[in-house]
């Protein structure tokens, strides 16, 4: 399969759509074209259930006549695009008030290929089948059974705008999500994202699985208490995802984010950085520009513990009097990828610092009781471990972590260990972090 082969027709199609939009008298046009090749191999109980693939083309238009913005995604380059876009154009033309929309005026052409961000070897489905089959065999020595998937994407993104931004890039992305099951509810999820199979680091993943699975204690229901908690990168990814969405200019402007009025304020007890950098080497979902043609770049949301930026597109840059951060998303400014870093300690030092607490390897089903105040709970998904005297002693299931997103960062104990890229099953954000220690989290359970 070749992503370039499929994009030939897309280019012609985009030319037709662009000309038609110009003829309608639209002032600001950003026309995105995508070609995507995807496949997923699903397994359960040590068997492959399904191989699925797709070859798709789509366009996305972002249009404005000076106030507000209108978007449209057309998946399937059917010839009657006008039947959809006529309604879009009509709405854009009738929009005469709202937030001012002012794209940058400088011309930029973006055609660089991200180094290592596109590896066409991922399109060899047989290699992925062999990879996951091999993995299942190795994991079957550690776990009773394995379920999960490997998902591969290859995407080509082309953009043409009425304000001088043009470009294209290609990316490939691989996501491994395998869950091992032992007896009495002991489960552990191996999750890693990269731009190719070889970068997933098979040996290191297997070692990680062995390390966790070899911890041999009776699985108990968790004890309700207030704990110091160490989150693995996968567990903390869920929190970073909600942080990202609540830092979107849309959630601030709409008035429901707990981070309203905190710009420039110290929001973390440690001098951490949280940033997005789709061009950073190793980012498993690289990108050169957003859907308005604004360059992706390193954008610090939190710098040295201080909230330094919201996530913005062209529309919301006007509201917040800042430049767009290059985060034009589905409809609103949206986090693309997020990286947590900062001074970090040895893993042993973090465990000693926590001394008495718990290690949580995966959470999900995060639900906000009060989104404006940032109060929420997340449910334990895989095995958790008790930390006693700085070492792992015992394991548990059934925990629910009662948190507040502001307090999580105010109560940071520290970061430790290797930083890795992950993406939990129930979020759509790739994040990179290491182990994260957080103080003062109330743990409850339905098992009582």
């Amino acid at each position, binding site marked *: 399969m070749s992503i370039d082969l499929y994009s030939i027709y897309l280019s012609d199609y985009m030319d037709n759509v662009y000309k038609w939009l110009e003829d309608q008298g639209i002032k600001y046009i950003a026309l995105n074209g995508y070609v995507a090749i995807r496949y997923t191999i699903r397994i359960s109980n040590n068997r492959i259930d399904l191989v699925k693939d797709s070859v798709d083309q789509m366009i996305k238009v972002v249009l404005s006549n000076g106030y507000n913005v209108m*978007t449209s995604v057309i998946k399937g380059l059917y010839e009657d695009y006008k039947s959809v876009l006529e309604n879009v154009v009509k709405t854009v033309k009738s929009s005469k008030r709202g937030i001012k929309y002012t794209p940058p005026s400088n011309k930029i052409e973006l055609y660089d290929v991200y180094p290592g961000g596109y590896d066409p070897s991922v399109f060899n489905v047989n290699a992925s089948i062999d990879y996951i089959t091999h993995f299942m065999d190795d994991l079957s020595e550690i776990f009773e059974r394995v379920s999960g998937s490997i998902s591969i994407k290859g995407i080509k993104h082309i953009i043409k705008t009425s304000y001088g931004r043009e470009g294209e890039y290609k990316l490939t992305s691989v996501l491994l999500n395998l869950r091992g099951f032992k007896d009495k509810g002991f489960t552990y999820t191996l999750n890693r994202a990269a731009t190719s199979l070889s970068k997933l680091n098979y040996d290191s993943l297997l070692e990680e699985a062995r390390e966790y699975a070899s911890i041999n204690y009776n699985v108990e229901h968790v004890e309700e208490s207030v704990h110091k908690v160490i989150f693995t990168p996968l567990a903390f990814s869920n929190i970073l995802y909600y942080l990202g969405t609540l830092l979107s200019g849309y959630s601030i402007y709409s008035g429901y984010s707990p981070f309203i009025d905190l710009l420039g304020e110290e929001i973390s007890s440690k001098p951490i950085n949280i940033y997005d950098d789709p061009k950073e080497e190793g980012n498993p979902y690289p990108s050169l520009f957003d859907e308005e043609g604004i360059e992706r770049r390193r954008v610090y949301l939190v710098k040295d513990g201080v909230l330094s930026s919201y996530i913005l597109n062209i529309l919301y840059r006007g509201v917040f009097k800042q430049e767009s951060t290059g985060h034009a998303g589905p409809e609103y400014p949206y986090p693309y990828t997020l990286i947590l870093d900062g001074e970090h300690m040895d893993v042993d030092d973090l465990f000693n610092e926590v001394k008495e607490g718990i290690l949580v390897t995966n959470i999900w089903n995060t639900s906000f009781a009060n989104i404006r105040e940032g109060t929420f709970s997340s449910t334990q998904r895989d095995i958790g471990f008790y930390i006693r005297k700085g070492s792992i002693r015992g394991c548990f299931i059934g925990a629910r972590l*009662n948190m507040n997103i502001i307090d999580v960062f105010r109560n940071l104990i520290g970061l430790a260990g290797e930083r890795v890229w992950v993406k939990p099953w129930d979020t759509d954000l790739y994040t990179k972090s290491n182990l994260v220690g957080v103080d003062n989290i109330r743990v409850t359970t339905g098992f009582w």
Partner: protein
Amino acid sequence: MVNPNDLAEYMVEYGLARNFDIVIARYQNVIAYNISIVNGEVASTSINRTNGLGAKLIYKGVNIHTSTNIFSFESVKNRVEEALAKAKAYSKDKFRYVTFYEVESTDISHVVKEDKPFIDYKDELISDLMSLDDEIKEYAKIDVLTRIFNIHAFTEEKYITTSEGVKVYSKIPRILLHYRLVSKAGDKYISRDGFLGGSGGIESIEYESLKSDVKSILDTMYNIAFKAVNIEDGEYNIVIGNELSGLIAHNSVGHAFEADRVLGMEGGQLGESYVSKNDLNNVIASEEVNVYDDPTLPSLFGYYLYDDDGIQTRRRTLIKDGIISEFLHNRYTASIYGIPSNGSARAESYMDEPIVRMGVTYFEPGDRGFKELIEEARYGIYIKNVSEWSIDDRGVNQRYVGFEAYLIDGGEIKNPLKYPVIETTSNIILKSVKALGDDLRLYPLICIKGEPIQRIPVNIGGPHILITKIRVLRR
């Protein structure tokens, strides 16, 4: 222009010519309008179309799903050839052998009519929501800082054709209204989200019902800010409202009874089930409990008549008199049980394989009036609706945080309570049901499952229900 239905037919024809055992091809076209109104202004609008061909192909037991949105015979041929090459290469012991129960041929067309088509009446809906925004400001006794109304109107058109002669055309328009309110009292904020919707045109959004729900939320916000008290941790009799009984039907029964979860096939995704394959006919709830999943109920958000395997659906009896009666199946899981599918296969888009999903899941109402339930509770809590809920990935350990909630004392509703938390298990909650009300209300919900995640429209619901001796915590 090539007719996409012809391409679906060609996919079946070419698949059979290339010796696939079964081909289920689907043309799926979804047009979606999204309008967001924030604090009285239209903040964004989008129109999206997702349009393509997907097919499930079985070759000597190997299960392949392929899709494309390149509309040409050449493209379809390429997808089938690539599927065949994969299936031949992978017919080995690491694959699960798939068989399908046979079905009879059928040819049917099914279109849901819109009394007030969204495209023609959207301005009326926007105008109503703008008026409601004004009413909120006038009505609320506290400062409502954020008022968001998100309209998601989408029409799903499908043509399913299979190698066994099934041909089903359907067109179902749906609307979902999500709203979010945030208020402020002193230095405290209170927030609450709500949903309303159904299948059909904008008549699915019943304005008076919406207005009533919103006013109730505003009253509750005031109560939480100024009148509500915390409840002491302990065991209580609880009367739960329609929304909460619906969430329990969805979480503790619907998801847990999806046969693919029961069989462990979602283990790396949504999760497995606390119910095992051999639990059919076992007691799971008190004998008052009957739970159904019925996608054939008209006008609802989760409504459909034929599933994406081309199977006619029906009301599924999940729990009858407290006993597990039936699981939800697609053709794949049904074949493992050696029974016909009960029509639960659904796919979000042409790119997705149809997996086992719910439609409209609810507790069957009983015979008690609301007052009778409160009197029967004597001392306890009435939780009308919730602001937070979650459940673990086996459908056991669950939590519901009450939003509008009151103390029940002496068989009467007393003062409002602040965020009482139910944290319990499915086993406890289903067996604690003592009486069911005679009312039934159903709510729309977007349900997630699969890999990548597939979002599909469903309904949840039930009557008011009295559950006893349930542990409650303060938040």
